[in-house]
């Protein structure tokens, strides 16, 4: 359904994505995993059209996101939802108004219909009865669930999840993960989840894409990933500090830096 072709994104000298080709199938949960700086958040933002790629294409069916008119992009986004890492609720609006926001903006539905739809979405995420609260009064987990309800408001075909479980306690994280799994299966939507939470990621994924240094290093079902014999994959899913993925990112040699006497260190 969504396909990228030689997708690259550079930030000045830093290469976040390097000629990445991925394929995301409809009606299932695709989990994109990788360590910090592996380019996974960049990939998600590119897929959502929030950033422009340096080069390459993103195909939604026959439409290329790269070079698409804003009008067409907004039409496409009417069928997309996104759950942001920090929820991104509009903090001047109550829980109810946040969830109702896309409906009020993009439909001409009656207030009573909108009320029914908002109540349904809040019921789906288990927050019915909290309509009147303001975003500042919510815990992190609740805010995420409200944002989830908002992302679902327009019954999207594709929903993007940016680190849905980060910053949450294990139970809240589990709740969010099972909500993603459950709602994807029930409503046949396409979920794209970016996370470094191996446990939750492998649990809900139909398809896993593992990124490292802007490249796909492994792909497949959770089982395939678990039993991969790639040392980098094993290191990542087991969280071992030693292995082919280095923990330190120093540019210069440690010995060299130690041998330089104070005061003579090169200033760059």
């Amino acid at each position, binding site marked *: 359904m969504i396909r990228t072709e030689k997708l690259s994104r550079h930030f000045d000298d830093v290469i976040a994505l390097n000629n990445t080709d991925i394929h995301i199938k409809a009606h299932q949960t695709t989990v994109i995993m990788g360590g910090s700086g592996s380019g996974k958040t960049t990939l998600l933002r590119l897929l959502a059209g929030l950033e422009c790629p340096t080069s390459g294409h993103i195909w939604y069916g026959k439409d290329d996101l790269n070079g698409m008119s*804003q009008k067409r992009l907004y039409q496409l986004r009417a069928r997309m939802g996104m759950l942001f890492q920090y929820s991104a609720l*509009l903090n001047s609006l109550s829980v109810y108004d946040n969830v109702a926001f896309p409906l009020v*903006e993009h439909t001409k539905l009656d207030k009573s219909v909108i009320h029914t739809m908002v109540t349904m979405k809040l019921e789906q995420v288990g927050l019915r009865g909290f309509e009147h609260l303001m975003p500042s009064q919510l815990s992190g987990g609740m805010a995420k669930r409200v944002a989830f309800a908002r992302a679902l408001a327009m019954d999207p075909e594709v929903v993007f999840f940016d680190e849905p479980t980060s910053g949450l306690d294990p139970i809240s994280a589990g709740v969010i993960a099972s909500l993603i799994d459950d709602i994807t299966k029930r409503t046949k939507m396409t979920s794209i989840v970016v996370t470094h939470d191996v446990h939750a990621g492998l649990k809900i994924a139909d398809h896993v894409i593992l990124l490292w240094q802007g490249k796909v290093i492994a792909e497949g079902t959770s089982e395939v990933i678990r039993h991969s014999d790639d040392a980098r994959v094993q290191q990542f899913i087991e969280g071992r500090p030693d292995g082919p993925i280095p923990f330190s990112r120093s540019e210069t040699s440690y010995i060299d830096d130690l041998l330089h006497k104070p005061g003579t260190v090169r200033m760059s």
Partner: protein
Amino acid sequence: MNKTNITQNSITLFFGYLGRWFLRAIESMGDAAVLSTTSLAHLFHRPWQGKHIVLQLYALGVGSFVIIAITGAFTGMVLSLQGYYTLAKFGSESLLGSGVALAIIRELGPVLGAFMMVGRAGSSITAEIGIMRVTEQLDALQMMAINPKARVILPRIIAMIIALPILVTMFDIIGLAAGYVVGVELLGVNGGAFIGEMIAKITPMDLYAGWVKALGFGILIGVICTYMGYRATPTTEGVAKATTQAVVAGSVGVLVLDYILTSFFL
């Protein structure tokens, strides 16, 4: 390293720094101009943002009335007081009315009014948009197919442009009334002379000059403050820095623009 080398080094450093700063200033001016014109272009596109302009007029315009009234009142009072003691030395107290009125209408109303708006409304615009950037609310609007330039930037600039001339006019009237009270009621200047001189000396041109300045400052503050917020580095310090920069750039900008506009009107 010998001494001349060091001085040469610091000179090139200084000019390098100055050059970089200048280029960056020019670059961000162009960037701000592009951002605000593309945002303002949405005024002529659907959806119409009337409701959001009204909300911003309420927050930025109505909300600033009290501080503008207080500033205006004290400006008029102190001008009257200062002017009286200077004019009394020459026995020309009767000129007090025209002095106070000209100072307020041509200069102090627009400039002090604009300063107050930079501090109160401008800083809040920058901080609010900056926080929307940090908390990904601007991206969230994008994902909900709502253009943040049309929804967030446009109403704030328009509200600033409408509110500032109105607030400056209120500043003027309150300042003149307060100046009258101090000059006539407290210091004993003849009330008829105060008002008569005031009316005789103020030409329509003075009023237009004041309003054109207010309009110019409204555009300037709106553009600078929305730009600083929109382009803020998405971190807590980034927003803090952007807010400070918005207030500094806004205030300095007001003074520079004031000089330019004054030279046109004299």
